[in-house]
C-alpha cells in the first residue's frame, strides 16, 4: 500500500475551488499524524503543522480510508466530513509531494484527476476502484468574493478554478473578525466606573426627602453599588486556541484593549511579556484601582506596548503611577479620552505637556488630582479646543481651581456638555459664564463649592437667561448649605420639564433637600391658591352658556 497521505483522494471532486487564504494551509502530514486517533483533535488545533479544522477532518477521513483499504469494513459514505480539496487553500510549495497538488499556476489547467499519482499498478484496492467512488456528490456552493476587507487580513483573489466548496464561515477572516469582535464586545468587561442613575442617598431621611415613599426610600438606601467583578474566563482566550486564523484574529482584537484591575495579574503579565509575545497596540489602556502598584511595574508593563493607536488612557485611582510623556507623544492626536483620577504624581507641567501633544482630547477627567491648578487649566484651554467633558472635582486643595481658569476654559471650549467642579473655588461668575457661553451644557456638578451664593441660583430663572440651560439634565448642588433660595431651582425644574420635556435631576444633600421640599410645598400652595381662586370665579359666573329651563317649560 503506497497511498501517500498528502495526495488527494480519488473521490475528490475536481470542481474544487482553491482559495488562497494566508491563514489556512493544508499541512504536510506524516504517518505519525495519520495514526493519531481523532480524539486528539484539540492537540492538533494548536500545533503548528495543522492549521485548520478542515485538514483535521481530512485526516479523519484518511484514517478511516486507510482502515477501509485494509479491508476493515467501514462504510465511509457515512462520514460527511468535508473533503480535503474543499479546503485545500493555496499552500506552501514545499509539499511532501508537490507534484500531486501543485499550487503553481502552470498546473492550474490540469484537473485534479489528471494530476493523480498512478497507483493502479501495485495494488488492487486502489482508490479508483474502492466503493468510495459511489459517495454522493456534494452540493456545491460558490463562495462569494468578500467585499469588505478587514484592516489586517488580506485575501488573495481566488484562482480561476472550478468552485466546489462548503467553506465554513469560520474560515473567512472577514466574518471571523466580526464574530470575534462580537465575542469581545459581549464578554470584555472594561474595569470602568459605572455611571449611577442618581447618587445614592446619604441616609434614610435623605432618601425619604427625595422619594417621599418609605418603601422606595428603604430600597434606595440599601442599594449597594454593584461591584465590578473581574472576569477571569473571557471566551476570547479560548478563541486563541482554535486554530491559526482564530489565533491571529483574536490576538489582534485582544491587543486593542489593555486593561488590568488587579496587581497580581499585572505582575503575571509583566513576567510573561517579551518581544515575542503579542505586541499590544491598544486603543484602550486602563489600569483600575491599583492602589499600591509601584512605578517600576508600570514602566516594565508599558515597555513593549506601542501607544500609536491609543484613544483612551485611564489610570483610575492608581495614585503612585506616573505615565510618562512618551506615551502621549506616541498617541498624539488619536487620544480622545484621558482619565487620571486620584493621582498624586501628575502636576501642572504634566498636563500642559500632554495638551501640546494630544490636541483632540474630548474627555478630561482629573478628579482628585490635587496638584492640578489654575495654571495648567488656563494653559490647556489654548490647545484643547474639542473638550466635551471635564471634571476637576476634588476633596482637598479646592482653592487651586478658581474662576480665572475655568472661565477661560469655558470661553475656549464651546462644545462642553459636562462640567464637574465639585470642591472647587468657583463663584457665581462661573455659573453665569456657563449659562451664556455653553448652549450644550447637559450636566453640571457644583457640589461643595463654598463660594457660590443664592445669586447663582437666580441665573436659572432670570428672564435674560431664559434661552440658557435648555439641555440641562443633571444639576448637582450637594453640600452647599450656604444656599437658601431654592425656589429658583424649583421653578427651573418645572420649566425644564414643561417647556423642554427634560426631567431635570437635581442632586442635593439632606439639609438642602429639606429646604427644597419645604419651599416646593410653599410654592405649590401659592399656585394652588391662585388656581382655586380662578376656578371659583369661573364656576360662580352665572353667565355660563346654559339656557334657562323656564323657557323650555313655557314653550
Amino acid at each position, binding site marked *: 500500500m503506497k497511498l501517500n497521505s498528502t495526495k488527494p483522494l480519488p473521490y475528490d471532486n475536481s470542481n474544487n475551488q482553491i482559495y488562497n487564504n494566508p491563514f489556512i494551509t493544508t499541512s504536510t502530514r506524516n504517518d505519525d499524524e495519520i495514526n493519531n486517533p481523532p480524539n486528539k483533535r484539540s492537540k492538533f488545533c494548536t500545533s503548528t503543522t495543522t492549521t485548520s479544522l478542515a485538514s483535521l477532518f481530512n485526516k479523519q477521513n484518511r484514517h478511516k480510508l486507510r482502515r477501509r483499504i485494509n479491508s476493515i469494513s467501514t462504510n465511509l459514505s457515512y462520514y460527511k466530513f468535508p473533503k480535503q480539496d474543499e479546503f485545500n487553500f493555496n499552500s506552501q510549495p514545499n509539499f511532501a509531494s508537490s507534484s500531486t497538488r501543485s499550487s503553481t499556476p502552470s498546473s492550474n489547467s490540469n484537473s485534479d484527476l489528471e494530476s493523480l499519482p498512478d497507483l493502479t499498478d501495485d495494488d488492487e484496492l486502489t482508490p479508483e476502484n474502492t466503493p468510495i467512488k459511489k459517495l454522493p456528490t456534494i452540493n456545491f456552493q460558490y463562495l462569494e468574493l468578500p467585499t469588505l476587507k478587514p484592516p489586517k487580513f488580506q485575501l488573495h483573489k481566488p484562482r480561476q478554478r472550478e468552485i466546489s466548496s462548503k467553506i465554513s464561515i469560520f474560515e473567512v477572516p472577514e466574518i471571523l473578525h466580526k464574530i470575534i469582535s462580537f465575542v469581545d464586545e459581549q464578554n470584555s468587561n472594561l474595569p470602568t466606573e459605572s455611571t449611577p442613575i442618581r447618587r445614592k442617598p446619604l441616609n434614610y431621611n435623605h432618601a425619604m426627602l427625595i422619594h417621599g415613599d418609605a418603601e422606595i426610600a428603604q430600597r434606595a438606601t440599601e442599594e449597594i453599588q454593584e461591584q465590578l467583578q473581574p472576569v477571569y474566563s473571557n471566551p476570547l482566550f479560548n478563541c486563541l486556541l482554535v486554530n491559526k486564523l482564530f489565533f491571529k484574529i483574536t490576538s489582534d482584537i485582544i491587543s486593542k484593549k489593555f486593561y488590568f484591575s488587579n496587581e497580581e495579574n499585572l505582575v503575571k503579565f509583566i513576567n510573561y511579556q517579551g518581544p515575542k509575545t503579542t505586541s499590544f497596540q491598544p486603543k484602550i489602556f486602563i489600569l483600575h484601582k491599583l492602589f499600591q502598584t509601584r512605578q517600576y511595574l508600570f514602566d516594565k508593563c508599558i515597555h513593549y506596548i506601542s501607544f500609536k493607536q491609543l484613544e483612551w488612557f485611564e489610570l483610575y485611582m492608581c495614585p503612585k503611577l506616573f505615565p510618562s510623556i512618551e506615551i502621549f507623544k506616541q498617541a498624539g492626536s488619536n487620544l480622545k479620552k484621558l482619565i487620571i483620577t486620584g493621582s498624586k504624581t501628575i502636576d501642572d507641567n504634566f498636563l500642559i505637556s500632554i495638551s501640546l501633544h494630544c490636541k483632540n482630547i474630548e474627555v478630561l477627567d482629573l478628579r482628585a488630582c490635587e496638584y492640578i491648578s489654575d495654571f495648567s487649566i488656563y494653559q490647556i484651554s489654548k490647545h484643547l479646543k474639542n473638550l466635551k467633558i471635564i471634571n476637576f472635582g476634588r476633596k482637598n486643595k479646592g482653592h487651586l481651581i478658581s474662576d480665572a481658569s475655568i472661565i477661560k476654559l469655558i470661553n475656549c471650549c464651546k462644545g462642553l456638555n459636562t462640567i464637574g467642579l465639585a470642591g472647587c473655588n468657583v463663584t457665581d461668575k462661573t455659573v453665569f459664564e456657563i449659562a451664556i457661553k455653553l448652549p450644550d451644557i447637559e450636566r453640571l456638578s457644583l457640589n461643595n463649592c463654598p463660594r457660590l451664593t443664592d445669586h447663582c441660583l437666580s441665573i436659572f430663572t432670570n428672564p435674560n437667561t431664559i434661552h440658557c440651560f435648555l439641555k440641562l439634565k443633571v444639576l448637582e448642588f450637594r453640600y452647599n448649605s450656604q444656599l437658601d433660595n431654592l425656589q429658583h431651582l424649583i*421653578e427651573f425644574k*418645572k*420649566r425644564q420639564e*414643561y*417647556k423642554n420635556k427634560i426631567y431635570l435631576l437635581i442632586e442635593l444633600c439632606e439639609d438642602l433637600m429639606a429646604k427644597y421640599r419645604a419651599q416646593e410645598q410653599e*410654592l*405649590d400652595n401659592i*399656585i*394652588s391658591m*391662585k*388656581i*382655586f381662586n*380662578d*376656578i*371659583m*370665579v*369661573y*364656576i*360662580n359666573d352665572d353667565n*355660563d*352658556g*346654559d*339656557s334657562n*329651563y323656564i323657557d*323650555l*317649560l313655557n314653550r
Partner: protein
Amino acid sequence: MEEENYEQNNQVALKIGLIGDSQIGKTSLMVKYVEGSFDEDYIQTLGVNFMDKKIQIRNTIITFSIWDLGGQKEFINMLPLVSNDAVAILFMFDLTRKSTLNSIKEWYRQVRGFNKTAIPFLVGTKYDHFIDLSFQDQIEITQQAKKFGNAMKAPIIFCSTSHSINVQKIFKIILSKAFDLKLNLDEIINVGEPILIFK
C-alpha cells in the same frame, strides 16, 4: 390631576369618564360641551371616544379630558381605559327610559372595580323629552333617580343636550367637587324641573 407653573399660566388637567347604556347621549353631551354643537343623528360609538376641552380663566388653564365609552356590552373591556385615573365619572341614563336608570347599578359596580376614588355623578339626559312624559312617570323617575343618587352619594343632574340645559353646570359642579370649592348655585329639586342636586 397635575398642576404646573409655566410663564404665569397654571395648568390643571382633569379626566372625566362618561358611562351608561347605549343611545342615551353620552357622545352628544361630550360634543355639545367641547364644540357647542348638537346633531340629532345617532352614531353608535365603537369603543371609546376622547375629546379635550381647554378653558382659560385668568392665569389658569383647565383641561378636561373627556372619555366616552360605547354603551354596548361588548365594549365593557375598554372600561379601564375610561375609568382609570378619572377624577369624575358621569353615570348617565335616559330620562325617558327607566331601564337605563336601572342599569346604573351594574355600571357603578363595574367602575368601582377599577377606580375607587373618582367622584360619581348621576346624569339624566333628554330632559326636553322628559317633560313630555306623564306627570306620574316624571315623579317615578325623579324619585328613583334621587334614590340612586343618595345611594351613590352622587350629585344628581337632569340635562338636555339639544336645548343646552345644565350642560355647563355639570362641569362646574365637577370642578367644585374636585377642588372642594363652594358653589353659589341654587339647587333645583322639584319634580318636572331639571333636577340639580349637589350639596
